[in-house]
C-alpha cells in the first residue's frame, strides 16, 4: 500500500463545441505521506482541475488518483463518500456554513460520519484549540475575521481525521500577515497530525514559506518539479528564479546570474576582474536547506559578449532575457 497521494497519467478533457479543452495533460505526481507539496502555475494552468480530480468533484478523463492506496476516481457513490472522509479540503472562499456556528461547522463532518455527540464536542474543542480559536466556537462565520474563518475552515477539514489535506488557494483572499499565520498553522498541523498536504497556489511566497516540494503546472502539464532545495539549486529555471526573487531595479541593461553560495568568494573576485560589469542587486537565501545566491548585474553594452563569457567561465549561471543573447 502506498501512502500519500499518487496521480498517474491524469488527463482531463472538457469537450466543448469549439474543440476539446485539455485541462490536464498527463499528470504524474507522488506526494509521500506527511509531505507538503505545492502546485504553482498561472490561472488556467489546470491547478483547480487537478485538486478537483483528487477529490472526485471532477472525474478525470483518464488516469488514476490514489489516496493512501485507494482509488478515488473509480469509486462508486457509496465508496466515494467513504474515501472522501480521508480527504480534508480547504477552500479559497472558505465555504463555511453561514447558518452554523464555528463549532457546528467543525462538527459537520463528524455529524455526517455519525460520531456520537459527546465525542463530537470533545473533538471540536480539541480542533478549536489546535487552530488557536479556543472559546470562539459559538461565533457565527459573519462574526469572524477572514483569517479566523480560514482557521475554522482548516479545523473543519481536519475534523474527521483525514490523511490528506487539500488546500486550494488557502491564503489568496487574505492579507500578508494573516497569510503567514495560516501557512504556519498548516505546517504546524502537518507536524502534529502528520497529514499529507497538497497546496494549490499562484503565489510563490506560499511555496517558499511552507512547501517541502513543488510542481510547476503549465497548460495542464507538470513542467518542473522536485524538493525545494533541489529546485532552487537548478540555476536559471523558472521555479528557481521565481522562488528567489531579486529586488526590482530600473535598469534594462542587466542580466541575472545565480551561483552556489559555497563559491561566493571566487564569484565576487571574478566579477571584480571583469570589465564593464557591476552588481545592481543581489540576494542570498536558504531554501529547503540549500543556500543560493542570485545577482542582477549591470553589463556595459559594448562589452556584453565578452563579459557574459567571462561570467560563465567564472561558474555563474547567467540568464539573459529571451532574444537578447544574440545581441
Amino acid at each position, binding site marked *: 500500500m502506498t501512502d500519500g497521494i499518487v496521480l498517474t497519467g491524469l488527463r482531463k478533457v472538457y469537450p466543448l463545441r469549439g474543440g476539446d479543452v485539455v485541462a490536464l495533460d498527463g499528470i504524474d505526481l507522488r506526494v509521500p505521506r506527511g509531505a507538503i507539496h505545492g502546485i504553482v502555475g498561472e490561472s488556467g494552468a489546470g491547478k483547480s482541475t487537478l485538486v478537483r480530480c483528487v477529490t472526485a468533484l471532477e472525474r478525470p478523463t483518464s488516469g488514476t488518483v490514489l489516496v493512501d492506496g485507494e482509488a478515488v476516481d473509480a469509486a462508486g457513490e457509496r465508496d466515494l463518500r467513504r474515501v*472522501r472522509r480521508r480527504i480534508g*479540503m480547504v477552500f479559497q*472562499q472558505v465555504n*463555511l456554513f453561514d447558518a452554523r456556528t464555528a463549532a457546528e461547522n467543525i462538527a459537520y*463532518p463528524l455529524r*455526517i460520519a455519525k460520531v456520537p455527540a459527546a465525542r463530537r464536542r470533545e473533538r471540536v474543542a480539541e480542533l478549536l484549540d489546535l487552530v488557536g480559536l479556543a472559546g470562539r466556537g459559538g461565533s*457565527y462565520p*459573519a462574526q469572524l475575521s477572514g483569517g479566523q474563518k480560514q482557521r475554522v475552515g482548516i479545523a473543519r477539514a481536519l475534523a474527521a481525521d483525514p490523511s490528506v489535506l487539500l488546500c486550494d488557494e488557502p491564503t489568496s483572499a487574505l492579507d500578508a500577515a494573516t497569510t503567514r499565520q495560516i501557512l504556519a498553522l498548516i505546517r504546524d498541523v502537518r507536524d502534529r497530525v502528520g497529514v499529507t498536504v497538497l497546496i494549490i497556489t499562484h503565489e510563490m511566497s506560499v511555496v517558499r514559506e511552507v512547501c517541502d516540494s513543488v510542481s510547476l503546472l503549465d497548460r495542464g502539464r507538470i513542467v518542473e518539479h522536485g524538493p525545494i532545495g533541489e529546485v532552487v539549486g537548478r540555476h536559471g529555471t523558472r521555479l528557481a528564479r521565481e522562488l528567489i526573487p531579486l529586488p526590482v531595479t530600473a535598469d534594462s541593461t542587466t542580466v541575472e546570474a545565480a551561483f552556489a553560495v559555497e563559491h561566493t568568494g571566487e564569484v565576487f573576485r571574478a566579477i571584480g576582474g571583469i570589465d564593464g560589469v557591476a552588481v545592481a542587486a543581489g540576494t542570498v537565501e536558504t531554501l529547503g536547506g540549500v543556500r543560493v545566491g542570485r545577482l542582477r548585474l549591470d553589463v556595459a553594452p559594448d562589452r556584453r559578449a565578452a563579459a557574459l563569457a567571462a561570467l560563465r567561465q567564472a561558474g555563474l549561471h547567467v540568464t539573459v532575457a529571451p532574444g537578447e543573447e544574440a545581441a
Partner: protein
Amino acid sequence: MGDWLSDLFSNPAITDRLPEATLETLLMVGWSALLAAVGGLPLGLWLHTTGPGGLRPRRSVNALLSLVVNVGRSLPFIILAIALIPFTRSVTGSALGWQAAVVPLTVGAIPFFARLVESAVREVPAGKVEAAQLAGASRAQILTGVLVRESLPGLVSGFTVTVIALVSYSAMAGAIGAGGLGFLAISYGYNRFQSDVMIVCVIVIVLLVQLLQTAGDLIARAVDHR
C-alpha cells in the same frame, strides 16, 4: 365626522359581517399558505436538484417540472379558480365557502412558492455544497442540512411574499363565492354601493398585509446569520 363614525358602527354589514369575513380570510389564507409550503418547498427543491448545476441534474424531469410550474403561474388566479371548480367540488363537496377556496388558492400558490424556493436555494454558493460533499454528506443530507438551512432567510422572505399574494388571491376568490373580506367588499361595497364597507375592507386588508410583512421580515432577520 361623528355622524360618519356612528353610521359606520351602526352598519350591520360592518359590525356583524366584518369580524366574520376577516376570520374567513385568515382561515383561507392560513390553510392555503400551510398547504402551499408543504407542496411548494419540495417542488422547489426538486426543481433546483434536477436543474443544471443541481445535485442530480435531470434535463427532462426539470423541463417537465418547469413547464407545470409555468402553466400554474401563467393562469390569472380568477381563471384558475373557475377552471378548478369541478375539482374543488370533488375535494370539498362544494364550490362555495372559504373551505372550497382553499383548493384553488393552494393550487395557485404551490408553483408560485416553488419558484421562490428554487431561486432562494440557487443563491447558496456551490462551494458550500462541495464542502458538504467532501465531508461525505449524502444528497438528502445536503438538501436539508445545507441548501435549506443556508437559504432559510430567503425561504422565509419567499414564504412571506407567497402569503401576501394569497391575501390578494383570497379577495379575488371572494368574487366567486369564497366569502372573506373580498366577498364582503364586492357584495356590499360594490354591488350595494356601500362605499364605507369597501373602505373598511381595504383598510383591514392593508393592515393584514403590513402585519404579515413585518412578521416575515422579523423572522427572516432572526434566522439570518450572514
